[in-house]
């Protein structure tokens, strides 16, 4: 998925709220389901995410021979989750490890783009979706059988008793496992509008991104667990010896049982499959996982396979990592209808529901054999249905791809206006060279103007506009991003390397690269403390630095500024992670800590290439993309590079050299501020380019000599500001010209003329704004 950013950037906390709202139109959700599991998981987090004494080897030993999907999370010395160990039942590697990246705000598997607010939510999600895992996580059945939040799992549970659930001997297990009042059975919904509870429409996932998935995980779970319980109930009815074990006793004997299992269970750490300690249920599960399934245990086996998504003969779907894989874990849990009620595969897309059939399920499943049979049938039928649905949706699966294909077709067309304009653009851009009066910034801004023009052309094109109309349920901004991305492929890909060399020669000829590099050498050896980083903040270790360098390389390799920002954010995330490495939990790292650390990293990177990429992003990103987190961290990188290139050891810190001011004024001219513009903003850009030519004195003064002349005595902040103001009066002139175009650039005002306030850009947006409001 080409989402610009990892999942975590979107609100997960919000997700929960939203999901419950979604549920209401999905008609199939008990209000409590996922939250209960989440609560329970949180309550006994110590059990599945043990602390210090537990090592990787210990966890592997404990997991050995457990059912696929059994898992433990290991924490590092500072109690942050570090490693997810999952039992995968592989012949060579029965337990696999997945590193977790945990920060104060986001927990995620390093291999995955999905982030979660906390560990428990991550686990809940991965019980429903494999994502990058080979199997779904398996929460012990006794956990999910706890129906109410008030039924707390025993707090003193340890990892081993987590894996060997307390046995159930009490008869009230039946009532525990029965469906709670008001619980509606899982409905298989294939509509995009209803929030698709059990089967995720891939289109929906694509359209709504990763954060929606985290909502869906909760929703899906709500749908799934009653069924799981129901299935267990059915098992316990038909084969009490098996079902009983799958259900947890919620009676008072629980704690004893736990202790008992714990005291009996230590050997289980080594040879889980061989040692059967507490409950029949455990026996069953283990034997089913370690032996080839006998007829009697096949149903349980099925359940297990279903819940782990590793079904061999029910689904031949390839096990590639994909985001909607939790379908695997849910659909098979739906109790099978009797064979007679199965419909033939159909192409109804709006509501394929098996819920209506479920009522008969219990009576129909009078024997394990029948149950097994009907499940098989259901599985087969559902697979057919799904593949039919999949085919029907195939064309819709990836709107981005469709859009890109369409744009590419248009770009190849010899006669079409877009193709002609595009070719003209590419040729013209490739001919562009940095000259006396033409800086790379000018070239890039020209490119941006052309991009906007090309995008407008695309929008007006009937093919594209009808295609986009068909995706009208996507947020506007997302459509914009998609169109931009498609455009980047045809327009920027052919010219990106030429643009790089333009930026390079521009910065080389004005001496800024030399300065950047020499200052880098000056500062290279500085420790974080010397950069005034806060004490206790970690810096990336050599391995992490290596990883960061690789990311920088891939960032440079990307032609799309959107992709570049995406990678940049990943690097920033890595830096944060390193900063937190030795920190006490709860310490908050703001910009005081981050900027020095970022500077430290940049000093150990290829600053020249980074400057090129930063310029490229700054000038070519769609203005909308320059807001938010991407804009912030891009600004931070720009700032840190600026700090390096203008570093002067002997000067009072607060002084601004002439170059600094120039660079600042250049910064002021940059486009970041125009983020409030819609795609109609090309008119504005034209005028701004006009304005830019008026500010050309920016290249005029020699870099070295002048700056010394304007040095301000230490502590002279007043004067420094005055200098800026004077210098920027040039900018002001240009901004007045721009003001018609809603620019919001901070306008320096002279103290002596308070009246300027009224004529500032903001005041001027008033009249011009009328055109927009109408």
């Amino acid at each position, binding site marked *: 998925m080409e989402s610009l950013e990892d999942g975590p950037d979107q609100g997960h906390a*919000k997700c929960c709220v939203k999901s419950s709202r979604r549920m209401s139109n999905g008609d199939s959700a008990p209000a409590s389901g996922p939250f209960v599991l989440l609560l329970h998981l949180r309550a006994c987090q110590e059990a599945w995410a043990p602390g210090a004494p537990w090592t990787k080897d210990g966890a592997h030993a404990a997991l050995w021979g457990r059912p696929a999907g059994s898992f433990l999370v290991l924490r590092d010395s500072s109690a942050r989750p570090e490693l997810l160990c999952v039992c995968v039942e592989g012949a060579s590697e029965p337990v696999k490890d997945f590193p977790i990246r945990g920060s104060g705000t986001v927990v995620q598997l390093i291999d995955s783009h999905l982030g979660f607010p906390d560990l428990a939510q991550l686990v809940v999600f991965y019980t429903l979706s494999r994502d990058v895992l080979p199997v779904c996580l398996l929460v012990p059945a006794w956990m999910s059988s706890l129906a109410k939040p008030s039924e707390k799992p025993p707090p003193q549970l340890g990892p081993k008793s987590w894996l060997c659930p307390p046995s159930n001997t009490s008869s009230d297990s039946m009532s525990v496992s029965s469906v709670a009042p008001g619980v509606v059975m899982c409905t298989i919904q294939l509509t995009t509008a209803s929030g698709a509870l059990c089967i995720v429409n891939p289109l929906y996932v694509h359209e709504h991104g990763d954060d929606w998935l985290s909502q869906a995980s909760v929703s899906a779970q709500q749908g799934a667990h009653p069924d799981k319980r129901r299935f267990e109930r059915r098992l316990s009815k038909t084969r009490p010896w098996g079902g009983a074990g799958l259900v947890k006793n919620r009676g008072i004997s629980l704690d004893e049982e736990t202790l008992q299992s714990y005291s009996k269970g230590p050997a289980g750490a080594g040879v889980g499959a061989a040692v059967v300690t507490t409950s029949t249920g455990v026996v069953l599960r283990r034997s089913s996982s370690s032996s080839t399934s006998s007829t009697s245990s096949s149903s349980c086996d099925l359940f297990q396979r279903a819940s782990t998504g590793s079904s061999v003969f029910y689904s031949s779907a390839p096990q590639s990592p994909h985001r909607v894989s939790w379908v695997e874990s849910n659909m098979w849990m739906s109790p099978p209808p009797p064979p007679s009620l199965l419909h033939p595969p159909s192409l109804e897309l709006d509501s394929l529901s098996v819920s209506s059939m479920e009522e008969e399920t219990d009576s129909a499943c009078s024997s394990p054999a029948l149950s097994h049979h009907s499940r098989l049938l259901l599985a087969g039928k559902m697979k057919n249905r799904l593949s039919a649905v999949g085919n029907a949706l195939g064309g819709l699966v990836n709107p981005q791809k469709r859009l890109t294909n369409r744009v590419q077709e248009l770009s190849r067309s010899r006669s079409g206006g877009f193709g002609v304009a595009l070719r003209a653009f590419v040729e013209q851009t490739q001919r562009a060279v940095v000259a006396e009066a033409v800086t790379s910034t000018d070239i890039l801004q020209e490119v941006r103007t052309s991009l906007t023009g090309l995008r407008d052309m695309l929008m007006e094109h009937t093919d594209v506009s009808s295609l986009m109309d068909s995706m009208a349920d996507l947020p506007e901004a997302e459509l914009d991003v998609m169109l931009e991305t498609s455009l980047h492929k045809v327009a920027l890909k052919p010219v990106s390397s030429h643009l790089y060399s333009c930026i390079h020669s521009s910065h080389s000829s004005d001496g800024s690269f030399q300065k950047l590099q020499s200052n880098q050498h000056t500062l290279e050896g500085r420790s974080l403390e010397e950069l005034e980083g806060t004490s206790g903040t970690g810096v990336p270790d050599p391995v992490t630095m290596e990883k960061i360098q690789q990311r920088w390389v891939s960032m440079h390799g990307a032609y799309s500024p959107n992709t570049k920002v995406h990678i940049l954010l990943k690097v920033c995330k890595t830096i944060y992670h390193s900063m937190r490495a030795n920190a006490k939990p709860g310490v908050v790292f703001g910009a005081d800590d981050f*900027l020095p650390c970022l500077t430290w990293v940049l000093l150990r990177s290829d600053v020249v290439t980074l400057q090129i990429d930063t310029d490229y992003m700054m000038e070519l990103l769609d203005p909308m993309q320059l807001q938010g*987190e991407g804009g*912030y961290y891009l600004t931070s990188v720009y700032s840190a590079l600026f700090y390096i290139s203008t570093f002067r050891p002997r000067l009072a810190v607060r002084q601004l050299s002439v170059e600094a001011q120039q660079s600042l004024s250049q910064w002021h001219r940059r486009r970041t501020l125009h983020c409030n513009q819609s795609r*109609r903003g090309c008119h504005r850009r034209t005028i701004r380019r006009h304005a830019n030519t008026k500010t050309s004195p920016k290249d005029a003064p020699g870099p070295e000599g002048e700056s010394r002349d304007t040095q301000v005595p230490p502590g002279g902040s007043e004067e420094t500001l005055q200098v800026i103001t004077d210098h920027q009066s040039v900018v002001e002139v240009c901004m007045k010209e721009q003001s018609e175009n809603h620019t919001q650039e*901070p306008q320096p005002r002279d103290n002596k003329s308070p009246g300027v306030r009224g004529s500032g850009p903001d005041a001027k947006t008033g009249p011009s704004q009328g055109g927009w409001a109408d």
Partner: protein
Amino acid sequence: MSTGGNGRPNGSLPQTKICQFKLVLLGDMAVGKSSLVLRFVKGQFDEFQETTIGAAFLAQSVCLDDTTVKFEIWDTAGQERYHSLAPMYYRGAQAAIVVFDITKPETFERAKAWVKELQRQASPNIVIALAGNKADLAEKRLVEYEDAQTYAEDIGLLFMETSAKTAMNRKRCQKQTPRISHTLHEIGELTSKIRIPSLPRGAAETKSSANRLAS
């Protein structure tokens, strides 16, 4: 999407206008800029409303009457040596919170300098709030409440005192969060009063109105 932002419509509140404001945090190093805002962001909700990759950038929404104001909070490095970078952060900001430490008079002086700089260089209509942090350290107080308040009133700033202690003084902290929240509400109201009538599009409007019009 990474821009954290304005893209995704708030499905639950289709009628509500969504404004997006950039709020910049300024102040000396270690005066508690980010923890102050983090407390607000975390205080009102259990988790971040917008999960972000680090506390240097935070996003939080505040609901006014018919408007949801979404703050994008840009933290700045307070170290003197990074001072010259601040304009890159505060440019285009609609609001600023200037933070100082009530136990360190020099940070108050620095805060005044920031206010001056903002008034001179930032957006003309920027709403500025002054925050005296670490109010829990009353025994070490060196900047009197009245002094700061008078200063703030004189030049028309919002003013609040806040406490950085979260764990030790929980009761107080709970009082504190609404305080910050209240100030952000005020900022939101002030900012939207100034901005909404004059903002053409994008930041101050839901995508539906302006952009649909555009297309």
